């Protein structure tokens, strides 16, 4: 353990009641952080500021931005293009801790994929009385069009993002599953590249698990879903377009995987097949990695006013001529109320005990749970079941009496739209703020990539999201959250766990 108190670059900060990723106690650095701590401490505030400026400049040069559209009523001519706040102190996860997380995520994803399959086929889990039928039928993301359809490779959820937090007991908890069109991949990969460039020595000297090969795994997973036997399948990434807030990510992934970035207007359905309009004529598309919500995919099936999708896409899909990643209708499993059933799904489908914990969750359509929650709204987080991105959320401890009254009314009016959870203490990690380090709350979005027949890969580390404001618990980028590079570091000398 190293003690530092004299170096302004990374002076110890007072610890809160929660778990701190770097400090085990006052000034006591955890073993897996020692090397990084030493390097950052030795740099001094001036050098750190220079690095931070260089980082910022590169992100701007490379256009690593997301777009914020105003909802503040002010007539904003141009939407804001922002670089995401990127903190340079990496979040470090020891190899053995990661091994447990990885197993838990693989287990969870297998059960969730089976659940989605079950929902659109026999619905055994409903018949056996584990999940109430109305929870499925009333679910906003339930797609009756998917009933009875066998999806390519039997994989519904090709790309998923599992949000995890570390509570004050030092354990990880799953906060939510993102099973529709999770984002954040580009920040993960780009963050690592930037760190390698800015801190080559530190990166060299730490045995960090490689993430670059995960992009190849991503591409292999997508290719494995091709419904035809075409040895060189045509893959496209379907984006809503350059005005989408995640457009940078779409362009990044298309570029890195060498797949085509297309909009709905570039595709056309003909004779139950999907074609790409190219200068060389129509080319048949085998796999669509879509970053478009279900309801925009096909105006003939879903929202008729959607200009973003491809008329006839669902027919081509159901004819088995094109793969969609992820499959339509996976949202039925990532609803915040369905989340409470995931541990049961794992026991039901796999006959195993869940390796990852869920945060205790109150389903407000149940009268006794609702009553319990309404009595202590000030100590609860209330979320709308079908919204994500930190929207439609009440954090009890930070709310005003008026806000609580508003939510109370909403809950009483439409209880099935809400769930509540006790306020979990997110762990803290050091960020560079002002002239030194300060603790900020973080979570972890882990990404799993599944190819045909359940071949699943978890990207080592994932994306650490940071609530950049002191004390804040909201880490979403749309709400001013930032990110950190996340390292899975094996003890020097120990063999790495994952073998290809």
């Amino acid at each position, binding site marked *: 353990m190293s003690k530092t108190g004299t170096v302004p670059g990374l002076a110890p900060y007072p610890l809160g009641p929660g778990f701190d990723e770097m400090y085990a106690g006052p000034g006591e650095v955890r073993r897996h952080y020692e090397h990084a701590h030493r390097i950052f401490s030795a740099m001094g505030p001036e050098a750190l500021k220079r690095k931070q400026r*260089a980082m910022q400049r590169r992100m701007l040069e490379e256009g690593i931005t997301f777009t914020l559209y105003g909802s503040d009523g002010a007539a904003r001519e141009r939407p804001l293009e922002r670089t995401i706040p990127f903190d340079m102190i990496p979040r470090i996860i020891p190899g053995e801790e990661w091994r447990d997380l990885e197993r838990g995520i693989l287990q969870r994803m297998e059960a969730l994929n089976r659940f989605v399959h079950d929902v659109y086929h026999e619905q055994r889990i409903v018949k056996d009385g584990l999940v109430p039928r109305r929870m499925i039928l009333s679910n906003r993301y339930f797609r009756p069009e998917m009933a009875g359809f066998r999806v390519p490779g039997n994989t519904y959820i090709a790309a998923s993002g599992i949000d995890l937090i570390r509570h004050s007991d030092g354990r990880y908890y799953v906060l939510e599953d993102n099973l529709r069109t999770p984002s954040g991949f580009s920040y993960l990969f780009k963050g*690592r590249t930037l760190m390698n460039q800015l801190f080559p020595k530190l990166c060299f000297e730490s045995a960090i698990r490689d993430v670059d090969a995960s992009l190849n795994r991503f591409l292999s997973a997508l290719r494995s879903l091709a419904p035809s036997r075409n040895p060189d399948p045509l893959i496209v990434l379907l984006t809503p377009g350059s005005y989408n807030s995640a457009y940078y990510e779409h362009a990044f992934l298309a*570029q890195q995987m060498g797949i085509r970035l297309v909009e709905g207007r570039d595709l056309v359905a003909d004779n139950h097949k999907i074609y790409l309009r190219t200068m060389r004529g129509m080319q048949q598309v085998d796999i669509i990695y879509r970053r478009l919500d279900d309801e925009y995919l096909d105006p003939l099936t879903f929202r008729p006013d959607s200009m973003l999708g491809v008329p006839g896409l669902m027919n081509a899909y159901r004819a088995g001529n094109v793969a969609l990643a992820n499959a339509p209708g996976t949202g039925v499993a990532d609803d915040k109320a369905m989340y409470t059933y995931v541990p049961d799904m794992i026991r039901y489908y796999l006959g195993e005990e869940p390796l990852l914990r869920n945060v205790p969750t109150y389903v407000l359509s149940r009268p006794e749970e609702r009553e319990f929650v309404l009595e202590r709204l000030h100590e609860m987080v209330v979320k709308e079941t079908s919204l994500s991105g930190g929207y439609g959320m009440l954090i009890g401890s930070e709310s005003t009496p008026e806000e609580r009254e508003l939510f109370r009314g909403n809950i009483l009016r439409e209880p099935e739209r809400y769930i509540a959870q006790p306020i979990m203490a997110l762990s803290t990690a050091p960020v560079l703020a002002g002239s030194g380090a300060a603790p900020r709350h973080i979570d972890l979005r882990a990404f799993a990539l599944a190819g045909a027949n359940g071949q699943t890969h978890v990207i080592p580390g994932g994306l650490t999201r940071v609530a950049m404001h002191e004390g804040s618990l909201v880490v979403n980028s749309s709400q001013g959250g930032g990110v950190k590079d996340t390292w899975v570091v094996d003890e020097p000398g120990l063999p790495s766990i994952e073998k290809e």
Partner: protein
Amino acid sequence: MLNRNAEALFWIGRYFERAENHARLIDVHYHIQQTETHDAASSRWSRLVDAIGSRDEYTARHDDFSEEDVLSFLTLDLEHPNSIYACIYQARSNLRMLRQQLPSEMWDAASGFQLWLDEQTPANILEDPHDFYQRLKEQTATFLGIEQSTLWREKEWHLIESGRFLERAENTVRILKSTAVYCRGSDSSRWYPMLQAVLNSLSAYQAFRRRFADDMSPARLLEFLIADPTFPRSALFAFRELEEHLHGLAEDSAQRGQGHRIVLRQTGKIKSHLEYLDYEELDLNRVDPLLDRLIEWCDELGGAMRERYFRSEEIRV
């Protein structure tokens, strides 16, 4: 044109290409991220010296392979004829000799480049290596861009470009040689970061993906960087360009001597060999004869250019 001027032009192309290749190689080797144990750190730096083929010169000057020593040896050491500084210094000397015969912007660019290098110290590199080599590459690109947009397409142009593409072919093959050695000597789980680093160092990552998608293997990498017809840093592409510029030179020069024909024939033979490669030759365990032969051919071509083409006493170095 005087023979020695012709050779000076040829070497301007070679030196700039060499400087750029070394900057690419260093930048990416620098950032290869491998889960190797700490004590293997020095082998990363010796591998870099080997890739550039200067081990003897290095060990004559330094006892061990440290980051700072290796980077300054490869970048700023004027005594080391393969360093980036030495390459630019030589190219600028050649340009000074010829400056009245070339667009003045070319001289300005080379001269500005060297003035910048004069001021650099190892500390500047270590401060932010990525940024440093990025700026180096930008300056070689500036020179190339100015040459492309200002130089008349006559023998001066063909000479510089001949030098550039012969050098490029040789560098690409040398990088492949060290990649093949590395891959054979390491577990296949270690290949990916190395292959990706090589592709990045040659700005080939995206082009490779377009052609081979997720099939990232040593054999595919070899196939791509040796024989891809459209990627501008593949060996085949370089030999095609070289042949074209040698033809251009033949059309433009008064005496089409015997020497010229020999060089052209040799280039055409190598190009044809690469166009009709047998895929077995690209197997990781069987590729060495091909790579060695290519390096030999490049050497011979360089020699033939000197002996048969420039036909006069050596003027370089």
